[in-house]
């Protein structure tokens, strides 16, 4: 099978003011696969993830160098000429802590479409149902779509945030430690969901939990001190890492 790339990171450097946070990163992102970013805290994995939808543009003094090319149209995601809003409309993100808006369940999912100016009820209805089904939440909430999102449990809220991200048909879906605030049952539901979703969308996930990376991802990149130490198929990384540092991290000797 020919590998198909969704995106490719080339010589990416990132600076918080004078702090050099990401150094010379190169990484392929395979289409419709799950790529996991692992590494000890502070290694830059979340910083790296937030480059993909230009979240760093929200704060002053942040600077990118290099390229993240999005295929097939060959756009450089981090180019200053490209509007961050254009990127964020195509690359969605699910955060560490569930962050639903203080709105109804329905309006939370419809938010991204409304931002884009969609207001036809029929279109919204259809998209909301499809996204909630996609996030395996439909059956639990279909009778109370106009309830406030805060009424849901933590795990349900996180699946609502996934539905919100799916509603706009993203080309890449970013997960930033999506289960770190959840209990084990809710965590395994989200993990199942991620595995299902990769049939439709390319996924990048940051996780501090190595078992989780092993369970859900196809490819894994191990990061340390702002650099990618090793990148390979997930089973290779976890069974036969080529780098000593990776091995020590995976076997739990540091991190």
């Amino acid at each position, binding site marked *: 099978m020919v590998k198909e790339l969704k995106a490719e990171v080339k010589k990416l450097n990132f600076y918080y003011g004078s702090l050099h946070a990401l150094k010379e990163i190169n990484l392929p992102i395979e289409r419709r696969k799950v790529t996991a970013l692992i590494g000890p805290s502070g290694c830059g994995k979340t910083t790296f993830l937030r480059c993909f939808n230009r979240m760093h543009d929200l704060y002053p003094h942040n600077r990118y160098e290099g390229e993240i090319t999005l295929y097939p149209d060959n756009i450089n995601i981090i180019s200053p000429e490209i509007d961050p809003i254009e990127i*964020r409309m195509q690359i969605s993100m699910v955060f560490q*802590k569930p*962050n639903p*808006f203080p*709105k109804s369940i329905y309006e939370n999912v419809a*938010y991204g479409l409304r*931002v884009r100016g969609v207001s036809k009820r029929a279109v919204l209805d259809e998209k909301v149902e499809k996204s909630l089904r996609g996030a395996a939440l439909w059956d639990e909430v279909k009778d109370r779509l106009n309830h406030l999102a805060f009424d849901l449990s933590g795990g349900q809220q996180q699946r609502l*945030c996934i539905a919100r991200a799916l509603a706009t048909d993203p080309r890449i879906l970013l997960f930033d430690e999506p289960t770190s605030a959840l209990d084990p049952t809710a965590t395994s539901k989200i993990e199942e969901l991620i595995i299902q979703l990769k049939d439709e969308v390319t996924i990048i996930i940051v996780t501090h939990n190595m078992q989780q990376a092993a369970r859900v991802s196809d490819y894994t990149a191990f990061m340390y001190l702002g650099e990618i130490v090793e990148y390979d198929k997930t089973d290779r990384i976890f069974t036969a890492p080529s780098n000593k540092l990776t091995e020590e991290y995976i076997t739990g000797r540091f991190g």
Partner: protein
Amino acid sequence: MKRKLARKIKEGAIETTLFLSALSSVFITISIVVVLAYESFGFFKEVSIKEFFTGTQWTPLFANPKFGILPLISGTLLTTSIALIVALPLGLTVTVYLSEYAPHRVREVIKPILELLAAVPTVVYGYFALLFLTPILQKFIPDLSGFNALSPGIIMGIMIIPYVSSVSEDAMKAVPMHIREGSYAMGATKLQTAFKVVIPSAFSGIAAAFIIGISRAIGETMVVAIAAGGMPNLTANPLEPVQTLTAYIVQVSLGDAPHGTVEYKTIFAAGITLFFMTLGFNILGFWLRKRIREVY
């Protein structure tokens, strides 16, 4: 042993003194209620409550006095409404601009200057409304009388912007960053994030800000006493002169209203009406502000 006892007595005495100081604030409230109630009780012995609240004429200083408070209430509500029509959109826009748009440096400079608006003595605002704004407005609105509700209303509206914007900014700051990021990550602009996510999240705090603003406008005295005129007038027309509850109290206090006369007691009757109007808004505002802290 003796030293320990002495120390205990000293600590106890200090704590009691401090406690009494804190408790004194409660006595102030009680005194306000007692004084207002006592003096207006005398008033209501001579004027029926029904006449007071349903009469449409307020002429206590005339030979044939009428004691219907409605014209003063309508005057108060009219100037307050004008102030709110100015302060609501301006205050909200300023808050959104300062808390979501303005760069840190701009905010650091503009905020203290805006707060000066609340520091200007209100008698100066009254001067400005009467002698500067009214003549200018008269050029555009020929029907505007020299004393009117419009001009002091507008000035009061701008005057309360700092009160409104500082409380609503606190409320908007209390909305956690990760909620905003959720919106930005969907491709929303600052405007969309502010109006669709941040303001709804901070709603009760912003509502509290406006209620505090209403209460300020109702209690504001000098601007209306100087620029709105001294005529109790049951009207909703902002171009006409009106008299507010507060301006009436000033008018009587300036003249000679000997202790114990009905005129003297009317200012307490007007005062207690004013007190309960603002009390209602203050309690509502306090309750709403408390709710912000409970949401997140």
